[in-house]
Each structure stands twice: as structure tokens, then as C-alpha cells.
């Protein structure tokens, strides 16, 4: 009940903020909650929009009568969720077909639609997935830790479906700041058993009494904490930051490759 009250209060506060913003500036899009759009998502959405949407909506998003994306004019959609549903389901009886986009693609397209009026595509560094794969396997050395489509080690998370479960923004942030973006469940752990055996691995699951991990030899290991003399969860990712290791083009290519990894259908 307390959580519900806090949540309700939060929504109320956000609603107030939106109302104030509406009074102060251009009319915002009505939202379920305060939206946050990240540059990487907007860029990714711009690429998808260019390849998938412009034949009907035009480059400027105003070819369909009654719809003008730059002006925030939509026929049916009010919230971001409405936009996602319209894109996913299409509009019966119109030329708007359903699009089988994944979560990261929907996030990108919606972010772009909401920011078309201010987004400047001229500075966009367009990534190429094929070149990105070469970076993944070469300069980035990503394949020495990550597995994709059944190839590579399992010590780091399998990236075979990363493009379906992570947004462009999250991927970009991970490449630039791996430690800051690391999911807590993936943190490296070091355990020492009471007979002195050292086990290092990546955490998969943990509770009060046990921890499950995949160790450096790719064994699934379950440990009981009372059997351990030492147990440490490391908060620093062993993945390097690529901020200064790769060029902007290489980063864009790598990101494009990762976004292309949608898993086995």
C-alpha cells in the first residue's frame, strides 16, 4: 500500500511537471509518464525510419494527410505506447501495415518520431553492421569474451539476441562505460571454498544462502555460502571502455552490428 501511495504521488508530480511545461512552451505530446529520449535511440530510429517509413510518410514525415510527425500531429496515437501499438499492429483499412519490430527498434522509432523537429541527421555517423562484425571480431576483440550464434566463449554474456533486448542507447552506454552499465546480476564474483579452492566467474543468480555462476571453465557452478571462506562480488567490469579505443565510425559500426543481433527466430 505504501508503495502504491509513493507511486501515485510520483505520477502526480510528473503530471504537474508536464502541465507546467505545457504552459511554458510548445505543446508536448501527452504521455503516460515523462519520456526520456536518448541520442543513440533517436539515431537508430532515424535509420529505421529512413529505410522503412519514408516511402509512405516521406522524409519529413508529412506525406500522409492528417499526419505530421515534425509537428507532433498524429491521427490516433497520443502516448508513446499508442505509437508502439500503431506501428506493431498497423491500422486496418489503411496502408499502414503492421511492423514486426523488436523492443529496441520500437524504442528507436518512437524516439525519432518525437524528436524529428529538432534532430539533425546531418551529423549522424551511420553504422554498418558488416563492418561492425569485423570490429567485433578484430579491433574490438569482443569475440574473445562474448558468444554470438553459438560461437565464442560463454564467460561474458551471450550477445546473440542483444539487439532484441537492449536499446541503442543502452548499447552505446555499455560500449563507452561498461562498469556503469553492467547489469548487477552479471557482476564478476570470486569465491574461495573452505578447502582453499578459488572460483572465479560471472554471477547468474543469487539468494541469501547460495549463488549460481558460470566459471572461467564454462561450468555452471552452484555454491552454498556457508561452504565459502570468502565471497566477493566485484563491481568493476572486466570489459574495457571503447571510448578512446575505437573511432566514432567504428563505434557506430559496432553498435549497428550489435543491434542487428536479434537471436534465433
Amino acid at each position: 500500500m505504501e508503495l502504491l501511495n509513493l507511486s501515485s504521488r510520483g505520477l502526480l508530480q510528473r503530471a504537474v511537471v508536464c502541465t507546467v511545461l505545457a504552459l511554458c512552451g510548445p505543446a508536448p505530446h501527452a504521455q503516460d509518464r515523462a519520456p526520456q529520449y536518448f541520442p543513440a535511440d533517436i539515431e537508430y530510429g532515424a535509420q529505421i525510419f529512413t529505410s522503412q517509413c519514408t516511402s509512405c510518410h516521406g522524409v519529413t514525415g508529412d506525406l500522409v494527410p492528417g499526419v505530421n510527425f515534425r509537428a507532433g500531429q498524429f491521427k490516433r496515437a497520443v502516448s508513446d505506447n499508442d505509437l508502439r501499438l500503431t506501428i506493431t499492429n498497423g491500422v486496418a483499412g489503411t496502408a499502414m501495415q503492421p511492423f514486426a519490430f523488436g523492443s529496441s527498434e520500437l524504442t528507436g522509432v518512437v524516439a525519432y518520431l518525437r524528436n524529428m523537429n529538432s534532430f539533425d541527421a546531418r551529423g549522424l555517423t551511420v553504422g554498418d553492421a558488416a563492418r561492425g562484425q569485423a570490429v567485433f571480431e578484430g579491433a574490438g576483440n569482443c569475440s574473445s569474451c562474448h558468444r554470438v550464434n553459438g560461437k565464442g566463449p560463454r564467460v561474458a554474456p551471450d550477445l546473440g539476441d542483444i539487439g532484441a533486448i537492449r536499446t541503442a542507447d543502452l548499447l552505446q552506454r555499455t560500449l563507452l562505460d561498461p562498469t556503469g552499465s553492467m547489469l548487477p546480476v552479471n557482476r564478476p564474483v570470486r569465491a574461495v571454498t573452505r578447502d582453499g579452492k578459488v572460483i572465479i566467474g560471472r554471477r547468474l543468480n543469487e539468494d541469501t544462502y547460495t549463488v549460481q555462476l558460470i566459471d572461467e571453465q564454462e561450468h555452471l557452478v552452484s555454491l552454498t555460502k556457508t561452504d565459502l571462506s570468502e565471497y566477493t562480488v566485484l563491481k568493476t567490469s572486466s570489459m574495457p571502455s571503447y571510448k578512446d579505443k575505437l573511432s566514432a565510425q567504428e563505434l557506430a559500426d559496432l553498435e549497428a552490428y550489435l543491434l542487428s543481433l536479434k537471436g534465433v527466430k
Partner: protein
Amino acid sequence: MNYRRRATFLLLFLISLIPDSLRAQVSPERLLHSDDEPENWLTYSGSYASQRYSSLHQVDAANVKNLELKWVFQAQSLQKFETTPLVVDGIMYLTQPPNDVVALDARTGRAFWVYHYAPSPAARPCCGIVNRGVAILGDSLFMATVDAHLVAIDAKNGHALWNVQLAEAAAGYAMTLAPLVVKDRVIVGVAGGEFGVRGFIAAYEAGTGRQAWRFDTIPKPDDPGHDSWRGGDWEHGSAAVWLTGSYDPDLNLTYWGTGNPGPDWNPDQRPGDNLYSDSVLALDADTGKLKWYFQFTPHDPYDYDSVQIPVLVNANWSGSPRRLMLWGNRNGFFYVLDRVTGKFLAGRPFVKVNWTSGLNADGRPIPSPQPPGAPTYPGIQGGTNWYSPSYSPRTGLFYVSTWEEYATIFTGVNADYKEGLRYTGGANTSPIPGAENPAGARQGPVNTYTEALGRGAVVALDPETGKKKWKFDMHDVNTSGILTTASDLLFVGGREGYFQALDARTGALLWKENLGGEIVAGPMTYQVGGQQYIAIASGNSLFTFAPRE
């Protein structure tokens, strides 16, 4: 150092160079010799012979009363929980409906990963969104899905490796069985017998999912057996395959049972024997070519699917060693076949039977259809059904879960085939004459299923004579698989939610626990950390027991 010692040293040295991760893989050789590692449970039925027997014996008649609950896994589903887990080197792999795979620590039940598969909304399995388990080869798991896909999953991290569609879910094709791995291939069959599908068994390359061979369970025009169908009836004749087969590596034959012909209960629509419905098929494991078949219920009017687990036993028959196949059939008969040739050796009823007056010398039933409105024994669910039987080489007995004194009044009606719609052709009722139909049976904890409709049992049969050595009666009908162990224990559940240990030689009750949920799965056992565990799915949870330490 002599030559042999040097060779041994070299071999050990070379083995030491193999990475641990590779050594831990489940090779075809490990599957062939699963009996050598009873601490693991490597296939749905425990071994290629499908005896659901374990040589573990730590839990025995003396300490079984000390079994205590070690851990519970609660499935994130309210569908029937029919899984038999695999256990490989301390890791348990199980499925939860509809088509999730979960990797657990077999000692604590804590999860390593969950693979989620969302089946197509077009999936329409006849009798529940269920799955019975996975198969393993190398570091890959294989799952058959209710929308008729076969998926390979990385056993270490739960990521899908490949996914192939076998048939159209919208046309009624589905898969609920655990696949069978033979050599480097994954063998499955398709369900859909209530939708007029054309059944098949097929093998897929474990590495790629490419189809290696396919055997259609209904012969097409000009193929042998096609003349057992009239006109175009064969096109929707069903003969689905929805339980895991067995494998004899010496003969390189894999054995699979087939289901009812379609439409199920209106045989007038499909005159003829309707091959290969209600049959066991012996297929060459490399090519899928049919070596022999035996049809248990030709021209079946009762939905007596013959999909039961083929139990392979090498034993003396009439004084001579013989490769036998034991089969507790839904039609109420216990069969013994020669699995080299398919020759019928014996068949005796193990429940009340009146649909036939007996079997002839070739095992073909002599029909005795009951008058309209009269009950047919066994009823629609059969004398037994899909619940795994067990054979103990120690007792030499075959154990099967049964429905006793259970009948159905069958009424065939004309059925029109429409793709994706049920194609059953029947208006059947199950009470025996004079018994009230218990509407709302088993809705909640109060069991309204009474003796008026039949009851359940576990029956121990002597394969040589077909006679019952003992019978353990239950109030409600029995939907549980059976496990036997080298300590002469028999584990079985039931619809009432009890999980029981019996003396496999006498049928005496040694231990029971109320798990509170219907048991529609087979028990299995494994050992980890020096302790033997027994696992069984009940309700929506998997319960794991071991002796109190």
C-alpha cells in the same frame, strides 16, 4: 615402462589436455552407455531401452520412510506439468509450460538460467499446452514446441542455437513430447490426431536443424500399406506421434508408437486397417526406413492411441534369450513382441476388455463391438495411456499405471474435415451404465471422481505369462508414470496428488507424501554430492526428495 603402460600414460596425458568443458559434454557414447552413470538421467525414459529403471540403491526399503523434501521448483504456469527432468553432472534441465527450459542446480533447485519460447497463438494442441521434457547432446538441449517447432538451446547459457518449423500449427500440428537423440540426430514426432493431420517421425541434424530423414506414418498412394485406406481418407488419417521412442543400438532400430486414425470415433468414415495408426514402427535410425511394424488396433473406433513407451528388454522367452519389446497398450492388452522382427509373441488383457473377444495367433484382435448405448471397456482414456511404465531387470516385472473398471459409451458421428478444426467424429460419454456423471469432477481439492466411473491402480505383470503378480489399488484413476530402482523400490504418483513408494516385489506401500497437486508425469532419480534424489512433478511444481541426513 613397457609399451602398454606407456600407451596408457599417453592416453591419460591426452585426456588431461581435453578442456573440462568438452569432457562434460554429453557424447553419443554417454547416451549409449547411460546405464554406466546412474547418477545422471540422460534421456526422457532414463535410457535407450526406456525401462525407467535406475541402478541407484541408496534409497531402499529400510530408509525410504526417511525421505524428506529437499527443494521445490514452482513452474510459472498453471498448465499441466508433465515434465521429466534430465540431470547431467549435477545440472537439472526441465521444461515448464508452454515451452520454457530451465537449468537448475540439482542439489538446491536454484536456477542458472531460463529460456523462454513464446509459441504461436495459432498452436492448438488437443489436450493441454504441455511439454514433457528435453533431450541433450553435447552442450545442446533440444525441445519440441506446441507450435510444432524444434529448438536447439545452449545448455550452458540458455540461448537458442537454431529453430526449425516442422509443420503448420494452424493446421493442428503440435509437439508435446521430449525428443530422442540418436547418434548426432534429434528424432521427434508430431501430435495432432484430433485435427486430421498426417503424422510423421523425423530426424534432424543436431548441429544445424537440417532434416535428415522423415517417415510419414500414413503411406501415400503406391506405398506399401496405402491400400488400408479408402480414397482420400488417408490425407487426414492422423496416426500422430506424441511420446518419445526407444532405440536398440545393436539393431540400429528406433521404435515409435503411433496414435489413433482420424476421425477418432467414426470408423465408418475410414474403412480399412488405417495403417500405420495404433502401431509400433521399427525404423532404421540412419535412414528412417521402415523395417517392420505391428498394428495393435486395426481400424480403431475407440481412440486407442498406441503411443506408449516401447520398453526394450533382453530376457529369456520360452527358455531362449530374445530381444523383446514390452508394451502396455491403451487398448487394455499387454503385448510382448520380438523387436528384431516385430513378431507377436504374446498379448493378454491387464484390465477389463470387451471391445475384442481376443487376439488371434498373429496378435490381431477379433472385434466384438458393443451394441449402441452399451459400455465399451476400457473407455476412451484406455486401460493405460501415456504415463511411462517401468521394467525392473531385478524383479523381471513390468509395471504399468491402469484405469480399472472404466468404460465409455461410444457414438460415432460424421465429421467434416476443415483445416485447424477438431476432426474427431464422436459423441461419447464415460459413465458406466447407471452411474451418475459427476459434473465438475475434480474442481479443487474435493475429489468427486468416484468408483462409479472406475479407479486407478499400479499393476505388476510377469512378461512371460502376462499374469498379475500384484496390484496396488487407488481410489481415483492413475495418470502417473512409474520409476523402479535397484533397491526394489517403485515410485508412482496419481491424480490424487499422493507420491508413493511401493515394494516392487510385493506392491506393499512403504512411504507416501501428499504433494497436493495432480501428478501427470513420470518420476526420475539421480545422485549428486553422494546423495540420491527422487523428483516428481505435481500440480505446478517439481518436488525433490532425499533421505534425511
